C-alpha cells in the first residue's frame, strides 16, 4: 500500500474508451506517467478530461481499454480497490466531508487505507501543516475559507499515501494569489511525496509552468502530447482551442 520511496511506479492508461449511449466521451486514450512527474491533461470543455479521471479511479466502468498501476490492473475493480492500488484524487467541485472536522477529513482517508489510528492522526497533522491549514484542525470542513478547502482536499488525498494523485481543476475558484501559492505547493509534492501527479486545469499559465508533459484531448480523442513548449505551438491544439472559443 505504502510506496517504497526509492521505487519508481508507473500508471499506464491503454486505449481507454467510454461511450455514453453511443457518444464516445473518451475514445482510445493512451498515456503513462511515473512517480515524481507532473502530467497535465488539457482540452476544451467537454473534451473528456473529467470522464477520464472517473474511469481511472473506477468511479465509471470503462467501455474498453485498461488502466494499470505497475503490474496491477485496476480497470473493473471497485473504487475502494482502485484507491488501495495507489490512486487518490480531488474533485472539480470540492467534495469534503463538510460535517467532519478538518482533522477528521484527513484522518478518515489515512485510516481507511489501513494506517493505524495514531499514525493517521500524526500524518494528518503533518499534512495540514505542510499545506498551510494548521490552526483549523477542529473546525468543520464546510466552514473554512474556500481556498483552504481546496488545499484540505489535496491533504486528504495525500493522507492515503498514494502513488498517483489525480487533481481535477485544483485552482478552480481560487484568485490569482491563491492560485500562485497552490502552484508553489504542487511543484514540491511530486518529489517530496514521491507521487506522480495528473492534473486537469483550465488555467493555462499554471499548466505551462507546472507540468513536465501535457496531453491534449478534444472530443474524447488525443490530439497532441509533449512538453508544454511543444504543445503550445501545435496547430491542432491552437485550432481546437480557437474552434471551441469561436
Amino acid at each position: 500500500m505504502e510506496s517504497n520511496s526509492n521505487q519508481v511506479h508507473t500508471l499506464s492508461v491503454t486505449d481507454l474508451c467510454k461511450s455514453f449511449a453511443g457518444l464516445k466521451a473518451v475514445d482510445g486514450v493512451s498515456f503513462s506517467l511515473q512517480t515524481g512527474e507532473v502530467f497535465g491533461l488539457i482540452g476544451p470543455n467537454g473534451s473528456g478530461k473529467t470522464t477520464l479521471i472517473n474511469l481511472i479511479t473506477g468511479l465509471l466502468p470503462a467501455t474498453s481499454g485498461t488502466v494499470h498501476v505497475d503490474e496491477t490492473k485496476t480497470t473493473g475493480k471497485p473504487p475502494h480497490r482502485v484507491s488501495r492500488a495507489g490512486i487518490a484524487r480531488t474533485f472539480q467541485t470540492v467534495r469534503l466531508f463538510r460535517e467532519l472536522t478538518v482533522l477528521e477529513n484527513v484522518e478518515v482517508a489515512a485510516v481507511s487505507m489501513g494506517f493505524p489510528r495514531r499514525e493517521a492522526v500524526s500524518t494528518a497533522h503533518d499534512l495540514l501543516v505542510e499545506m498551510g491549514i494548521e490552526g483549523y484542525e477542529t473546525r468543520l470542513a464546510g466552514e473554512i475559507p474556500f481556498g483552504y478547502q481546496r488545499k484540505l482536499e489535496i491533504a486528504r488525498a495525500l493522507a492515503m499515501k498514494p502513488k498517483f494523485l489525480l487533481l481535477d481543476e485544483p485552482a478552480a475558484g481560487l484568485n490569482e494569489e491563491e492560485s500562485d501559492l497552490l502552484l508553489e505547493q504542487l511543484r514540491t509534492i511530486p518529489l517530496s511525496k514521491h507521487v506522480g501527479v495528473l492534473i486537469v486545469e483550465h488555467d493555462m499559465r499554471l499548466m505551462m509552468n507546472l507540468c513536465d508533459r501535457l496531453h491534449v484531448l478534444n472530443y474524447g480523442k488525443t490530439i497532441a502530447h509533449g512538453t508544454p513548449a511543444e504543445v503550445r505551438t501545435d496547430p491542432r491544439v491552437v485550432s481546437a482551442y480557437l474552434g471551441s472559443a469561436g
Partner: protein
Amino acid sequence: MIFGEFVINTLSLGSLYALVALGLVFVYGILKLVNFAYGEYVMVAGYSMYILGAFTPVPWWVTMIVAVAMAALTSYLTELVAFRRVRQKSDNAALVTSFAVMVLLQNAVLLFVSPRARAVKLPSAFSESITILGVVTPLRNVLTIATTLVLLLGLTLLMKYTVLGIAMRAAADKFTTTRLMGVQANLVISFAFIISGFLAGVVSIFWVGRSASVDPLIGFTPLLIAFIATVIGGMNSLVGAVAGGYVYGLLFNILSITLPASMISYRDAFMFMIVILFLLLRPEGMIKGNYTEERVG
C-alpha cells in the same frame, strides 16, 4: 404534580420515539433508503422474547439480549440477502425490495406462529411503579429514558471517536467520495444495518413492554412513528432524528391532554396535519443535515 407527570411521560415517549427514528435514519443516512422492513426488526425481537419466555427457562436478561441480537442479525441478513443485490441497480428497486422484505417477514410470522397476538413474559420491573419527585410513574418509563440516554451517549462516542464511526459519518455525508478513499462500501453499510437492527431490538423491548404482547403487525406503528419523527426532525441528520422523536412525543402528549374526549380518536389525524405542515413549510425538517446529491465531476 400533573406537570411532573407530563414531563416524565413526554420524556419517556420521546425517548422511545427518538430511538425508533434513529434506527431508521442510520440506514437512510448512508443509503438514502427508507427501509420499510425496519418495523419487522422490532417484530422479530418481539417474537424472540415471546418464544424464549414461553418455551425456555432462560432468565429475562438473556431473553432481552437474544431479542436485540436477533433484530440486529435480521437487519444484517436482510441487507446481505435482499438489499445488497439491488441497491446498486436503482434506488427504486431497493425501496420496493424493502416492502417485499416487510411483507415476507410479516407473512412468515402469520404462517409459522399465529395471526393472533401472543403474550410476552416480562420481568416484574415492567409492571412496577416508582415515585420520583412526588410523581408516581411506571418504572418502565424511567428505564426507557435511562436506556435511551445511555445509548445516545454510546452512539455519540462511537460516531465521534472510532474509526468506524468517522467512516460512517463520512459515508453518510458523501458516500462515493468515501469509497474513493478506500473505505469498503459493504462494510459501512452492513454496520449501519446492524446498528439500525440493534436499535429496533431495544425499541422492541419497551414497545412490547407497554402491552406485554406481540402480534405480526406490531412493527407497523414504530415504522410510521420513525418516519414521521424523521420528517419532523430531518432525514439527513442523526441529531435531527433524535430531536424529531422527542418533538413527536411532546406533540402527541400535548394533543392527548388538550383534545376533548370526543376528539381523542382523531389524534393521529392531527399528528398527520402537523407532518403535512412540516412537509409544506420546512421539508428538510428541523435540522437540515448536510447531504447534497452527489455528482462527481
